[in-house]
């Protein structure tokens, strides 16, 4: 409602008063930022008290392994959402990477990995180009890749499931280091890397600025197009990586079903983790926590013999709650 040129020049110059802990609880922005951690803690506590065999190393390992691919994809998604975009094609990219893998394993593990990751990068580059150079909306651009990507993956794989027998790849999926599965290590390292990228590198700060105010960023000489293409490429590569790891774990390349609905899980993790949909801020730790929360929720329900349907409904409710606390307030 800012129609006239002059807003009431009445913005207070005084800094916000430091709030007492109780007052802070009433501040909605606090919930947006820290709510997800509280929720994770609550779920853990509940399980510690009421769920058998929950607080075991075995269980933790299982949970972390299951959530790792989602975390990896969500990291890329968080970057894209930080620029006020979205990437619906991540699931199809996973499938595409899975389709490429068996075709090049004959040349060795490394070439196959490189090709698959490259496929992800190419998908990301196409997305990024459509968004930044052609000016398409992210939903539409990535929607097209979503539709076309899986089709391409199926075409390449002749619609068939292929067994993976390459021992190096299999060990990537099932191996452990210091008792922690490799996939979890990879997810962890990537989370730290992306956090560093966002907080401490020029590129990361540029991502946040582009999402916060694109025109201002452009006028300040930031390479907006390059930044946009960059985030989609990163997202594509991470999705491809997740596809590779998932394939390794499944010991089979299944492009027809791999990654289905992954975009939903990733977006959910990002949103629940407190990253705003209209860009300007990327919460990496929050995203990881968001993915963990959804995973733990599902696991809790399963362990208490509650059906999948309940899990989905609960997920829906959590998303609504997360967005509710994050919504824009209309001032009067």
């Amino acid at each position, binding site marked *: *409602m*800012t*129609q*006239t*040129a*002059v*807003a*009431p*020049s*009445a*913005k*207070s*110059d*005084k*800094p*916000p008063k430091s709030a007492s802990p109780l007052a802070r609880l009433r501040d909605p922005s606090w919930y947006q930022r820290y709510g997800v951690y509280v929720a994770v803690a609550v779920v853990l506590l509940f399980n510690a008290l009421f769920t058998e065999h929950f607080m075991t190393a075995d269980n933790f390992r299982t949970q972390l392994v299951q959530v790792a691919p989602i975390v990896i994809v969500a990291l890329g998604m968080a970057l894209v959402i930080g620029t006020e975009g979205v990437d619906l094609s991540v699931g199809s990219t996973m499938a595409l990477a899975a389709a490429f893998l068996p075709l090049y394993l004959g040349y060795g593990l490394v070439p196959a990995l490189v090709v698959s990751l490259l496929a992800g990068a190419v998908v990301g580059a196409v997305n990024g180009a459509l968004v930044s150079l052609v000016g398409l909306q992210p939903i539409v651009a990535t929607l097209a890749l979503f539709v076309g990507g899986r089709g391409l993956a199926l075409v390449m794989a002749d619609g068939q499931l292929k067994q993976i027998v390459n021992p190096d790849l299999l060990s990537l999926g099932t191996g452990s280091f210091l008792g922690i599965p490799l996939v979890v290590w990879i997810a962890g390292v990537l989370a730290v890397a992306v956090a560093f990228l966002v907080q*401490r*590198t*020029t*590129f990361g*700060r*540029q991502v*946040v*600025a582009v999402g*916060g*105010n694109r*025109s*201002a*960023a*452009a*006028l*300040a*000489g*930031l*390479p907006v197009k390059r930044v946009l293409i960059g985030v989609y490429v990163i997202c594509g590569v991470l999705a491809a990586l997740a596809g590779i790891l998932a394939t390794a774990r499944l010991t089979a390349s299944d492009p027809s079903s791999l990654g289905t609905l992954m975009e939903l899980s990733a977006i959910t993790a990002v949103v629940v983790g407190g990253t705003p949909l209209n860009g*300007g*801020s990327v919460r990496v730790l929050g995203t990881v926590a968001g993915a963990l929360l959804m995973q733990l929720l599902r696991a809790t329900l399963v362990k208490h013999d509650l059906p999948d349907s309940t899990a989905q409904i609960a997920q829906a409710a959590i998303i609504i709650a997360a967005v509710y606390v994050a919504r824009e307030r209309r001032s*009067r």
Partner: protein
Amino acid sequence: MAPPEAVPQAPEAAGDTVSAVLEARSVSKRFPGVVALDDVSFSLRAGETHALVGENGAGKSTLIKVLTGVYRPDGGELRMTGEPVRFARPFEAQQAGISTIYQEVNLVPLMSVARNIFLGREPRNRFKLIDFARMHRETSELLDGFGVRVDPRRPLHTLGVGTQQMVALARAVSVNARVVIMDEPTSSLEPREVETLFRVIGNLRDKGIAVLYVSHRMDELYRICDRVTVLRDGRHIHTGDLADLDRMQLVSMMLGRDLSEVRRSGVTSFAAEGHEAARTPVLTATGLSSRLQLHDISLSLHGGEVLGLGGLLGSGRSETAKALSGALPLDAGELTVDGTTLKRLTPAAAIRAGISLLPEDRKAEGIVPGLSVRENIVLAAMPRLSRAGVVSRARQDRIVDIFMKRLRIKASSPEQKVGELSGGNQQKVLLARWLCLEPKVLLLDEPTRGIDVGAKAEVQSLIDDLAGEGLAVLLISSDIEELIEGADRIVVLRGGAVAGELTGDDVAEARLLEVLADHAPEPAGPAPAAQEDPR
């Protein structure tokens, strides 16, 4: 609740029930930390054209928002034809007969003229379906009454701003407005459209509709308004006939400065003496052209000088500034900085060459609200302050500290979100952003718009200092006094082309207004002598 009669400073206002169609009685409005309106009373008579003036921050826009139901007053009340009224939302004010025309037309751009005018009250046929034939016919009749001929089926966004405003006015009239509030209506209009607007206002007067005209353009006010109300610092200062007040008196009332002081030292904080310009230009622009927006613009900027860029809004000043900073795609033209011609014109290239632009709209193109003061300041300088792509906090902190002190930016800490700062401080943050690049050329587009009086003075002195230090400054301002007193030399634009240049003693209000209003649709008299080709 309302005080009975005479408010000391405005004897006419409160007791004026002579056909007062709209009245504000002792209206107050407070925001956290500031009182925007303090016990303001004023009344509007049917059929009059009433000017509302005041500096930025005087409370004009807050008063309008109270009158139109956007805000609810914390104190006092509103009355229409004597009856107290309360508006819970803007629509209720509209229902009561108060319509508003803003600079940014508040209609639906993608919909047609006719649909916009009749939105919400479409004429129906027998089957309760919309009767488009009738809608188009009535629209044409309405607009013809204003002397505006336009195809009612055209989408609104394909029309010029002036015509869009006519459509908005037509809608206001057709919903039986009794009061039309116009907020800076001519800022985007061509002189021709301004004439049309004034004629329409005359029409409204004949219909007995009151017009509240908010503008800082003295000429227009004196031409079409009957009475004037002056606000300053949220208080009502004066209401009276315009005929009884000369311009300097009006200005001094707006500023709260003594008349003689205003005559002597000017109304702004710019130093009275000009600046010493360097001999050779730092920046030379030749033949800048951008389809439909700029036509063969050539000018030069010298270090140590403040070059004013004058013209009505829509004359291409902001576009010129954007072109000079690489932010406007050009069809033709060249930029030379210190003798080197720039090959590619992008904001990044311009920044590298030492050109910085402070854009007009700091909200849309300036600040990144979610980021801190520090990050906003270093936004453009980030690559220089990083090592191998990694941000160096130490370097950033040092720069931020220097500039926060120099520009006196008031924030709780450099980490405060810049969106929380006042307009004036936000503007200073943006200035810091550009200054920390140590530019050779600083392009300022409306640097003091929408900021409080104190910050305005600081910015103006800063501009003086920067020019004194040898910077080449381009100053765009719709504040005539600011332009006159701040600039050493003024280039005037009209319709996207250079219309003239003022130097020396010609840099004065009368002269500038002359050039601005000068209008040459038909060649009057002998054709102009062959233009000296200066480029």
